[in-house]
């Protein structure tokens, strides 16, 4: 079993080991990379969208990257099923490394450190 952060209703979980810290976002003008959209824009549009700063938190990741996630997070212990070799090269760019069973159905396991943050700088902020 692996400890993960369950990101609101997005159906995405992030392994706890990837996260250095969870930080509040104080300046609405400084909104950064919204993780649900980076992983899957279609999925994000159907759920949380991209809310304002009060409904966001920032994940500071081990290694230095930073992404923003729904403030409504929970912690769970889940079994991560790694993606098969057939899917790994396809899903790698969006950080998806596996799937897991959540209370509401199957979810995606995303390691944001693997994300290709197109259009953003090293800190994960839009350019």
């Amino acid at each position, binding site marked *: 079993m692996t400890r993960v952060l369950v990101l609101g209703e997005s159906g995405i979980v992030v392994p706890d080991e990837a996260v250095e810290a969870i930080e509040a976002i104080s300046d609405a003008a400084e909104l950064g990379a919204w993780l649900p959209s980076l992983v899957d824009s279609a999925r994000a549009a159907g759920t949380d969208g991209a809310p304002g700063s009060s409904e966001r938190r920032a994940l500071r990741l081990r290694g230095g990257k930073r992404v923003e996630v729904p403030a409504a997070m929970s912690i769970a212990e889940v079994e991560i099923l790694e*993606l098969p070799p*057939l899917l790994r090269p*396809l899903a790698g760019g*969006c950080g*998806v490394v596996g799937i897991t*069973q959540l209370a509401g*159905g*199957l979810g995606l396991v995303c390691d944001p450190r693997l994300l290709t943050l197109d259009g953003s700088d090293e800190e994960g902020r839009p350019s």
Partner: protein
Amino acid sequence: MAPTTQAGSIAIMPMTLGEHRLAVEALSVLEILGPHEWVGIPNTPPFLPGALAWRGRAIAVLDLGPALGLPPLRAPSSRARNVVIQIRDDTLSLSVDRVLEVLRVENSAIRPIHAASWIAEAGLPCKGETVVDEIVVPLLDLEAWTGGGRGKR
């Protein structure tokens, strides 16, 4: 292709997808599931849209619907049957409407694709075609697809 059954014959498993009838080699089939929840994986092509949990691991979902002009699968719902297939080192689930009885056909009855040319036009690799109940049934060559076609379709 190495013989998979008795000399001179092959076991095939016909299945239906929409109005199309297809077949795979029966010995590649590990299990037939009913409707099964799956999850979409971003950045994947339409024919390989996601994954499902099977026997404690994740396996790829194969959807031939779009190639055949049918509506694509929409997670989390699958079609009525999910055929778990082993192809070399890959295990995947082919989502179809119905699975029919396994048949043994003579190798000589597997002809080059001709009447079922629609399947070649759909871009699906096939080993050939045969006739089952007076219907021409293409025999899918999923091995070619997971080998040479991996990640390209």
